[in-house]
């Protein structure tokens, strides 16, 4: 086996853009190939990856479109490699086709999404409008794992984690970032996973293992098409049972000051930074405000949220989309009588000041 030098020894504090962080994380995680197609604001992930790849014995393929980037990623995974791709917006739309194949066939693909404005081409800048699509896109059932990051440390930690989650559980895994995280610079600690006792789950080949098929071993026959409803129903039920059984191990969330919270702020991704900042300011002013952030937006920490939500007087869902998070929250809390309000800014950032103002207006 080719032994390339380690990209990072130990750990170090650096100051860089989010796209660079993702490229470093994928390299440190031992990703072997990136398949990609240009789209803003994802491009620099490819730019940094292609600069680092030859130094560490990694590969890159620029495909003809996102459909191909997704399907070549599927191919890389079938060949038993830690393969990944990255996209945004309309590219994410096209990526849903290969990701639905990965979902059906339990393929551990890793896709980094740098959300931009939508629908359509919209802006190349920022949004949280790809939440629904990333969690539930394609003609499927949402058997996916989606980590919503809030900044560079998350981008680094969860990009590494995504490879492990994907290969451990064999469901397509997503890192849901956004254009702001892609383009902004802030400090982050990057590290060799081993230095933190993180061992990488080995990737295994689905196809092309040694031996002549039919002679030394059975051939591998993989499909996503079924002739009969009963066959499909069984596959989906089995996969969903697996997904639901592992979900509690996968679910991650963050919370602060929820115990006595009258108003519970619910947000994900970078917006949660504004919510957290606002919560602190409001607490200083004496408002009983709590903060809850799902890190896995799929599977969603529904039980944990319900427990907190039932104690609160009002929930405020804050997002840079028109109710995509709110829909998931509402669905998760069915039957809970706490009022759900929202602060929605599709395609635009949410600042601390705005959240403070909004919460004050609720009192």
């Amino acid at each position, binding site marked *: 086996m080719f032994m390339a030098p380690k990209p990072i020894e130990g750990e170090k504090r650096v100051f860089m853009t989010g796209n660079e962080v993702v490229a470093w994380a994928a390299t440190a995680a031992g990703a072997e*190939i990136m398949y990609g197609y240009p789209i803003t604001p994802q491009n620099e992930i490819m730019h940094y990856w292609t600069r680092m790849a030859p130094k560490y014995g990694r590969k890159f393929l620029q495909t003809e479109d996102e459909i191909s980037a997704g399907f070549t990623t599927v191919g890389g995974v079938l060949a038993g490699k830690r393969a990944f791709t990255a996209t945004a917006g309309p590219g994410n739309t096209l990526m849903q086709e290969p990701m639905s194949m990965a979902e059906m066939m339990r393929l551990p693909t890793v896709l980094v999404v740098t959300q931009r404005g939508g629908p359509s081409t919209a802006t190349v800048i920022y949004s949280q409008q790809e939440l629904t699509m990333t969690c539930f896109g394609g003609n499927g059932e949402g058997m996916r794992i989606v980590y919503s990051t809030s900044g560079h440390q998350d981008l680094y930690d969860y990009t590494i984690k995504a490879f492990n989650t994907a290969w451990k559980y064999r469901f397509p895994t997503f890192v849901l970032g956004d254009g702001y995280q892609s383009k902004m610079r802030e400090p982050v600690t990057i590290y060799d996973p081993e230095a933190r006792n993180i061992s990488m789950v080995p990737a295994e080949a689905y196809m092309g293992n040694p031996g002549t098929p039919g002679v030394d071993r059975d*051939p591998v026959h*993989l499909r996503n*098409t079924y002739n009969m409803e009963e066959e499909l129903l069984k596959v989906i039920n089995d996969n969903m049972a697996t997904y639901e059984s592992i979900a509690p191990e996968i679910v991650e969330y963050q919370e602060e000051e929820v115990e006595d919270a009258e108003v519970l702020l619910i947000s994900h991704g970078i917006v949660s930074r504004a919510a957290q900042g606002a919560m602190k300011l409001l607490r200083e002013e004496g408002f009983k405000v709590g903060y809850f952030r799902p890190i896995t937006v799929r599977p969603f920490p529904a039980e944990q949220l319900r427990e907190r939500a039932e104690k609160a007087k009002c929930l405020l869902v804050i997002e840079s989309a028109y109710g995509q998070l709110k829909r998931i929250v509402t669905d998760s809390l069915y039957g809970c009588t706490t009022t759900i309000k929202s602060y929605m800014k599709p395609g635009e950032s949410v600042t601390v000041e705005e959240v403070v103002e909004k919460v004050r207006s609720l009192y």
Partner: protein
Amino acid sequence: MSVQPQMPRTWRTETKPHKFCPGCGHPLVLKALSWAIEELEIEEKVVFGCDIGCSLLAWDFFNLDSVQTHHGRTTPVITGIKRVRPDLVGVAYMGDGGGYAIGSQHLVNSAMRNEKVTVILVNNTQYGMTGGQMAPTTLPNQKTETTPYGRSVEETGLPTKGPEMVASISSEGSYVARGTVSNVRQLKKYIKRALEAQLNGNFSFIEALSLCPTNWRTNAEETWKFLEDQMSKYFTVGEFKTPAQKKEG
């Protein structure tokens, strides 16, 4: 004493009889592919990908590691495998709709990038699995479910000449040919050369003229007549690009 026809050893007996319609051309193409693989003794190295459409029925056809993908997407899946496992031999198997319509960008770009894969495309002039709609290869005036009065060249253009196109955009060293199920030995020879081109590090593309009595609504005689008299006239059988044409030096 009856003599059973010999089955290629890469055919998987457990999944026979196969699921193609009586009179379908696919098994002949798959037989030619088997023979070519066996002559080259590369069974251990082949990964076989099939598309959506009738080609998907080949998903468990062989004693070969096989993956059935999406409509038009077999070329990128096999490309993705081959990029990280250059020791394998990748075969992407699809129909004319998959290769020339929904997946044409993948065919064109994999040829232009000289991906080290072999694409085999079965041309039966229409979409078989979905019930006989017009394909890019439907002949002028040919009746299909979506051209019930015959394909109008004015409205829908001319049938796609795939190998001619691929030959003009592919790299030197690549191999491009059009065979026919009416000459399986020749088809096997072409496929073998295609696999050899891949083994030598180049792209290869085979179009195989095939039969679809089910959707053509033809009897045995008419089926062969359509292939020999009409398809073969429009779609020239032969080699369009061979590594021998590679300039020396």
